[in-house]
């Protein structure tokens, strides 16, 4: 983003030669760097250190740099005793399922609204757009009741992963981002494919989807991290401990586990999203920046 060549910003080249700026700016820069470093990496490093310490060390000297050695066995202990492994597995199942349902619904939906453009399209777009303006709190309780007994179908989705996967897909934001992207695909390409005799399905799978890989990646990342972070909803619809994701399990487990194992469990819970973010940081930051564009 800002790695691109910048001609000038608020501060001009002439300003940069003034002594106050010449020395002041780097000073602020260093100060701020220390600030974001401490805020961003500090807690994670502390967590890593504590995850590898004894409970006694954590409680007596939480800020001492090198307490009585590294307890590597904390990590496998957390994995087996706290069952972090199975909770992480549930989290992954939830995240991947949410990802698939979100991508399926928002690509097919955006395809209709942006490419096929049926007469009733604007009505659907309006209905989707309107939900952006309604606060989520209004549907929390009735959504829960819907999961307990699906209208018309009469099935109970509680304690099934569908209860998390399906509502996730009803996100207006993703659909609008996707529609915006599809809108920017040149109509000539679509027309050319049609003249070549492509059906709607073929148009969708062989033209639109391959052209949209960047946006698919962004939506995928934001969905995975979003579902990794979710707490209240899975807490409500997955009361069965063996199905709960890590975020729901952690506070429950924290009450009965000793502090060192708790810290290693927290560390393992944080590790995956952080690593995902560090690998895909460019796509991430672009996606977040884009969400601001939509809100505008």
């Amino acid at each position, binding site marked *: 983003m800002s790695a691109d060549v910048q001609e000038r910003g608020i501060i001009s080249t002439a300003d940069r030669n003034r002594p106050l700026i010449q020395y002041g700016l780097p000073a602020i820069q260093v100060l701020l760097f220390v600030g974001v470093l401490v805020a961003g990496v500090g807690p994670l490093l502390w967590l890593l250190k504590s995850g590898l310490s004894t409970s006694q060390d954590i409680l007596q000297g939480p800020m001492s740099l090198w307490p009585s050695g590294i307890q590597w066995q904390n990590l496998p202990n957390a994995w087996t005793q706290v069952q972090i492994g199975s909770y992480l597995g549930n989290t992954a199942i939830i995240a991947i399922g949410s990802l698939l349902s979100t991508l399926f619904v928002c690509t097919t939906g955006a395809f209709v609204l942006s490419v096929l453009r049926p007469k009733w399209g604007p009505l659907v777009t309006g209905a989707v757009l309107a939900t952006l303006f309604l606060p989520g709190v209004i549907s929390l309780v009735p959504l829960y009741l819907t999961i307990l007994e699906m209208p018309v179908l009469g099935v109970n989705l509680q304690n099934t992963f569908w209860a998390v996967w399906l509502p996730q897909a009803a996100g207006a934001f993703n659909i609008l981002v996707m529609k915006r992207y599809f809108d920017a695909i040149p109509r000539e390409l679509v027309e050319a494919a049609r003249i070549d005799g492509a059906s*709607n399905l073929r148009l969708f799978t062989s033209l639109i989807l391959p052209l949209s890989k960047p946006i698919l990646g962004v939506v995928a990342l934001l969905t995975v991290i979003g579902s990794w972070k979710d707490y209240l909803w899975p807490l409500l619809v997955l009361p069965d401990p063996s199905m709960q994701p890590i975020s729901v399990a952690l506070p429950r487990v924290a009450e009965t586990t000793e502090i060192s194992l708790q810290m290693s469990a927290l560390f393992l819970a944080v590790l995956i999203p952080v690593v995902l973010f560090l690998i895909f940081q460019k796509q991430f*930051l672009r996606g977040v920046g*884009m969400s601001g564009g939509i809100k505008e």
Partner: protein
Amino acid sequence: MSTARPATRSGRSPVTWFRSGGLSSVLFALPLVLVFLYFSWGPIVRGLVLSFQKNNLVTTPEWVGTANFSYVLTDPQLPQATLNTLYFALLALVFGFPVPLFLAVFISELRKAGWLYNVLSYLPAVVPPVAAILLWKFFYDPGESGVFNAILGWFGIGPFAWLNSPSLAMPAIVLEATWAGAGATAIIYLAALTSVRTELYEAAELDGAGIWRRVWHVTLPQIRGIILIMMLLQLIGTFQVFTEPFLFTGGGPDNATTTILLLIYRYAFINGDFGAATALSVLLALVLCALSVAYHFMTRRWSTT
């Protein structure tokens, strides 16, 4: 063209509709429509209905008119919860609003390594909130060897009771929320800042404006739209805060951190009174909608003057 159009429309039979791909449009739209009916619009409508019913999932629902609303509005817990929620929103605005803006303006001025600041400041936003809260809960340990108290102890300050003190609990929660949220907001501001035209700075400089005046008179007005939107979104978000007070303090100490959403949660999932819970949700949603509309008109008036 104009004469041909009515002819084709009147001649539109199911067969031509089918041939022109009408059915496949419907099939493609089906997942979207179903998901929104079931999980978005359905619950919204159902919530409105539910708020006028007595519903505890055990006995059959019955209509009670506005009884839920009057029950909720006269609940002695409501004033405290409302004040707490407003206090949370105010603190979040005071703490959380300038930090990302300052960060973004500064990062946008960096010629190199800007991405590093981005990554570092966004890092807290990818930590799952529950893990962050459990970690910070430990940081806020009231003992002298608690992490924050230990650090403040180096400077001879404290120790503080943090989450155990009715006056400090809410600021402590907001501090964590700011830490978690500032990075993401800064990224949005940064994206907006890239659209500010550099000629404006040049012009301002030629007019003799110093760096601060350039920030104040050029940068901030240029991204005013997004600043106002982010402010509104933050307000709407903080009015619906749940996870932080729920996990940090459970609403305590002495109800000092009970927010409206915590109250809704208690009505529905502890007392099993779904009618009262939705009535309060509807009231909160109405307030938020009114807030958005008022905000929209106010800011529109400002931007024209």
